[in-house]
């Protein structure tokens, strides 16, 4: 069976009763969704102590909405799956819910929302499930209608799973074409598991700088006006000849450094004892 849910079928059929049920009982899924929603809200950088009106695109069972409610914001959620919305209603979420296909364009008045968040939804727009659906066109109508309904200077943060670089390019290109500025923030870029991709878009106003991604401290010192593949070249040279012996102190330090870069939390601090041989007992 296809690994990616987008390949299995259209979202309104994929998120059926069984799949939706998982979002109330599976604590791991709930935790991940909440974490991503919290991070998206953090990236949105709304002014403190000011309740805002927020749109949640692909709200699903309202987990991300709960994060918004806790932060004191009022929200409106749209989703294409009836079953997910039914779960949201069961959980008695505070926001207003809509059954809506984002690829058809949003129907809200100009300047309505102070911010937009979306967790794991955008990649669904890259798939055509029917003959009449054309992904670039659907992305365009989504982004242009989104731009219209956001207040001036508002931000939109989308967490999504692009299948390949082409999809990422298609999405960012369509967003820029609709008039947004901004770009992609990647948390933990060196890890396959902890890696999370956020598309941060700004509408109008002065273009502010992109927020900083998490877990990228290790790749400092790269300048934008220069080619940045020096590291790749160095590692090529090191292969074979200059490799450090296994289980040596250097090898251990390197391994720990890599784990840290990947966002692992269990990495012990280095000390003078790191990688030292025990003395023989007898």
């Amino acid at each position, binding site marked *: 069976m296809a690994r990616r849910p987008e390949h299995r079928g259209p979202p309104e059929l994929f998120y059926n009763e069984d799949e939706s049920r998982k979002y109330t009982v599976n604590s791991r899924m709930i935790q991940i969704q909440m974490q991503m929603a919290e991070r998206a809200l953090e990236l949105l950088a709304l002014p403190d102590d000011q309740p805002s009106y927020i749109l949640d695109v692909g709200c699903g069972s309202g987990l991300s909405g709960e994060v918004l409610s806790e932060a004191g914001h009022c929200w409106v959620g749209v989703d294409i799956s009836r079953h997910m919305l039914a779960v949201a209603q069961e959980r008695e979420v505070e926001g207003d819910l809509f*059954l*809506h*296909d984002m690829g058809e364009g949003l129907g809200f008045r100009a300047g*309505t929302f102070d911010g937009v968040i979306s967790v794991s939804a955008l990649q669904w727009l890259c798939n055509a499930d029917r003959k009449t659906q054309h992904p670039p066109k659907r992305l365009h109508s989504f982004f242009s209608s989104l731009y219209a309904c956001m207040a001036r200077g508002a931000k939109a943060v989308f967490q999504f799973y692009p299948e390949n670089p082409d999809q990422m390019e298609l999405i960012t290109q369509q967003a820029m074409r609709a008039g947004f500025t901004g770009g992609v923030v990647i948390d933990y870029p060196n890890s396959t598991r902890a890696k999370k991709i956020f598309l941060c878009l700004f509408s109008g106003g002065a273009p502010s700088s992109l927020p900083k991604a998490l877990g990228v401290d290790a790749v400092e010192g790269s300048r934008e006006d220069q080619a940045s593949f020096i590291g790749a070249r160095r590692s090529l040279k090191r292969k074979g000849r200059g490799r450090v012996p296994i289980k040596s102190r250097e090898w251990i330090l390197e391994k720990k450094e890599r784990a840290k870069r990947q966002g692992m939390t269990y990495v012990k601090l280095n000390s003078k004892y790191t990688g030292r041989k025990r003395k023989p007992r007898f």
Partner: protein
Amino acid sequence: MKLLTHNMLTSHVKGVKNGFPLRILARKVEVRQIDFNPNFITRMIPRIDWSVLRAAAENLGHGQGLPESPPEEYESQEDFLKSAHHVLMEVEVLEGDLECPESGRKFPVTEGIPNMLLREDEV
């Protein structure tokens, strides 16, 4: 669906120039208690089309006590903010239809969730 959201909602059927406001044909309306947040209401008042809100509230039978237009310095008038809060946040349409003023297309509302999905020829 709250009246606050209704005030922001327009019809997005292809070819419709002005899909605002959607007409509410309600069959079931409920009032749900929600915490009063004067800060939020004050922020939303300038964004709201007041005449549309008033018409919608009267249509649902909850228009009592709403002035013709928001008074000046409404920030400090708690009575006004409370009545606005009641109409905007607490009155909910549970069953009924939303009708596009231009094309006459009806969007059904079931269990408080409007179905805004379009047919293929309407996109």
